[in-house]
């Protein structure tokens, strides 16, 4: 009898890229629901625009590169990139900016470097930074969280704002948008206010900015799910948070009136999202265990430095991109001890 031949191991393999990416998307759901709850329909509309654009861009460029389209579309990697970018964008961002960002992420950052697995930079973060430096005003016009928002927009009003730039006639952009808490903290510190004065503002909640802190918690839940499902390991999130808390804690201990409390750093902006979902992007992160700790820790420290003294408050994106560049070097110098080589646990 004759049989077909192929190489070992034999058996249905337990894992695949679609499952990995699918579970990342699933883990994002609680945080996305929280974002929609606090910041309105715009979040969801951004996600839809981004995903459609990403899939179309992925399909188009794969065709141009003469690569099979279907396996790459169904691996969900483009979808993950799109969603990660979309939830980092202000809820009322004009539609074409979202599309521009996604196109940049998929076409330039991902495919021009060789596609999935070959890109040295995190596509979502690179696109975020592109939009931030190109459209600084639009990118910093956030909505206040739901409990502070005096003029919540309906679904159709949101659609109109995103696609037509029009607001209901009794409202102006200044009236409905506000700076992000990070931005506000920066501006007010610049005006030489003390932390205790700044904390009087109703935008601050129990341990971070109101609304934001809870978004962070829900993303944390998703992150723990990824840890439990072993999609990510603890190294990068732990080290990144440790780096941020240690550096911000140190300065806070010296000067609690001009340096925000470490908890504020942790639960504001994209820190939790970044620690569990963005810095852990395997393609662009360090891959050795020790390397992941160094990589995460340096991102955490860099986030603190950029937030405290940098030109933009949106530090996670910059810190991740900077460390993306360092990842290959970190990997090279942190190779684990190979079995049978002398080391400290094999004396």
């Amino acid at each position, binding site marked *: 009898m004759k049989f*077909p031949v192929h190489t070992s191991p034999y*058996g249905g393999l337990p894992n695949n890229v679609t499952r990995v990416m699918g579970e990342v998307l699933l883990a994002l759901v609680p945080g996305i629901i929280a974002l929609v709850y606090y910041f309105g329909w715009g979040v969801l509309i951004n996600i839809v625009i981004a995903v459609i654009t990403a899939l179309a861009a992925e399909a188009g460029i794969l065709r141009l590169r003469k690569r099979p389209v279907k396996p790459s579309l169904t691996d969900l990697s483009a979808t993950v990139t799109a969603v990660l970018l979309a939830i980092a964008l202000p809820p009322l961002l004009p539609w074409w900016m979202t599309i521009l960002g996604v196109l940049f992420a998929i076409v330039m950052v991902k495919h021009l470097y060789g596609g999935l697995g070959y890109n040295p930079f995190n596509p979502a973060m690179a696109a975020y930074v592109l939009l931030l430096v190109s459209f600084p005003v639009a990118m910093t016009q956030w909505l206040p969280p739901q409990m502070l928002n005096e003029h919540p927009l309906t679904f159709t009003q949101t659609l109109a704002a995103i696609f037509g730039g029009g607001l209901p006639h009794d409202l102006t952009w200044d009236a409905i948008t506000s700076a992000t808490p990070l931005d506000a903290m920066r501006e007010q510190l610049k005006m030489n206010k003390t932390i205790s004065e700044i904390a009087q503002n109703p935008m601050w909640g129990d341990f971070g900015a109101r609304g934001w802190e809870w978004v962070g918690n829900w993303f944390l839940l998703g992150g723990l799910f990824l840890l439990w499902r072993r999609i990510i390991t603890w190294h990068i999130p732990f080290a990144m948070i440790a780096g941020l808390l240690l550096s911000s804690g140190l300065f806070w201990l010296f000067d609690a009136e001009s340096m925000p409390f470490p908890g504020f750093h942790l639960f504001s902006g994209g820190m939790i999202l970044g620690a569990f979902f963005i810095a852990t992007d*395997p393609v662009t992160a360090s891959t050795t265990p020790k390397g992941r700790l160094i990589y995460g820790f340096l991102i955490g420290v860099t986030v603190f430095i950029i937030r405290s003294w940098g030109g933009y408050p949106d530090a996670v994106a910059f810190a991740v991109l900077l460390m993306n560049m360092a990842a290959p070097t970190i990997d090279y110098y942190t190779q684990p001890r190979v079995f049978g080589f002398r080391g400290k646990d094999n004396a």
Partner: protein
Amino acid sequence: MITHKPGSWDFHGGIHRPDKKSVSAGKFLGKVPLPEILVLPLQQHIGAMAEAIVEVGERVLKGQTIARVSEYIGAPIHAPTSGTVVCIEERPVPHPSGLSAPCIVLQTDGKDEWGELPEPLPYFDDMDPSLLRERIRWAGIVGLGGAAFPTSVKVNHGPDRPIQTLVINGAECEPYITCDDLLMREQADRVVEGIKVLLYVVDADECLIGIEDNKPEAIAAMREAVAESGLKDVQVVQVPTRYPMGGEKQLIKVLTGKEVPSHGIPSEIGVICVNVATAAAVTDAVMAGRPLLSRLVTVTGEGVNNPGNLEVPFGVFMSDVIAQAGGYSERAYKLILGGPMMGFSLGDDELPVTKGSNCLLVASRAEAPDPDKAMPCIRCGKCMDACPAQLLPQQLYWYAKARDFDKTQEYNLFDCIECGCCSWVCPSHIPLVQYYRFAKTETWAMEKEKRQAEDARRRHEARVERLERLERERKARLRQKKEALEKKTAAGGANPRKAAVEAAMKRVAEKKARQAQAEKNTEESS
């Protein structure tokens, strides 16, 4: 310091997958009847190929040595039954390449008549261990766990490497395979007897028998046999079920806490590791004077009707073995020799069972689906987490794919044991081990080429140098002669030949002058 119990150490990585042992566990289907033709490959082991010492048409008896080895690393081959040598030629053999290799083809006569055997050595502990090694070598015993490394070489560790621990490998970590399990359950005494011999031969202080905890019957049987034997310092250790626990390096680490050095062998750290079936074969060789003629083979998978274990004489075709296990079911899709992690698939079943054939896995399409198209590596590091050698498979893959074989060596390619854990966990379904095998083969080829080029260069340089030397010597000789001559001349024209020549020349010149003068005179007077 924390004192560890044997078996309380751990190895990095590894995988869990359904062990599928219950398909065939504990089932013995008897001995496969002798077919008319046996095909015995001359290479059934690691090392030098055996050389046939029988002739075509010669009648051989059961147990007779039909191929011997002259190299140190190798194992002889014996006739599994009596019969006539039909031919010695290239036949297809079970090898991943699917190529043919020299085989002795034996026509059985059905008499199963034993030839002359060496005497049993029941009082082996009065003998010189080297005689026992000689007996093990004569018996053609190789590692029966699948690697087929000659056991006589393994137990000849040399006086400068004292052995503390004899590790007996009963882990049987590959899914599906149950032949060692069956052996331990039903013939524990035979295994323990072999351990006794091996302990004496390698002069070890203790023996640790490692068995995965998914084989409670085997553990109980072995514990009982050890207790009955009265052997001190022999301990059955239950180890966790995790692939590749049965890898030599992994089991030694778990049992003793010691790591076999990179590019090294266990005896360097005072350990020798032998499979349970090998120990049983040692018993036969020493206690009964019988060579290795057959082995237990697991025949399993959804593709056979009656899975179980069979005693198979070497040289029997796999098709005959499978027929004995109820034949193929409708679901038979792939034939795998060995386990699903490290085995290889065969294109044909008309191939002989050899010493290393521990399992015939007839897999259904569900058990061994065709591989998916590989996706790009996303550098998730799952392979790294699973690698028992603590390598960075993602980097090795990257460099193997780029054919950068210096880099693959820098990342310790040759510490890869090809266990397949990385390929198993890879979400992108990249056949990683295949890349490493490729890189290893290329590196070997390159090194061979380099060696040859180096040799050629050295030969060329030697030749050029030789020619130059000869030339130099010739010139030196000439110069010496010349110098000697000049010296002589300088020392007062003491050269009679030269003086004679000069004198002659002078005379000729004078004569010419005279003649010229005479002609002139004649002209003037005319």
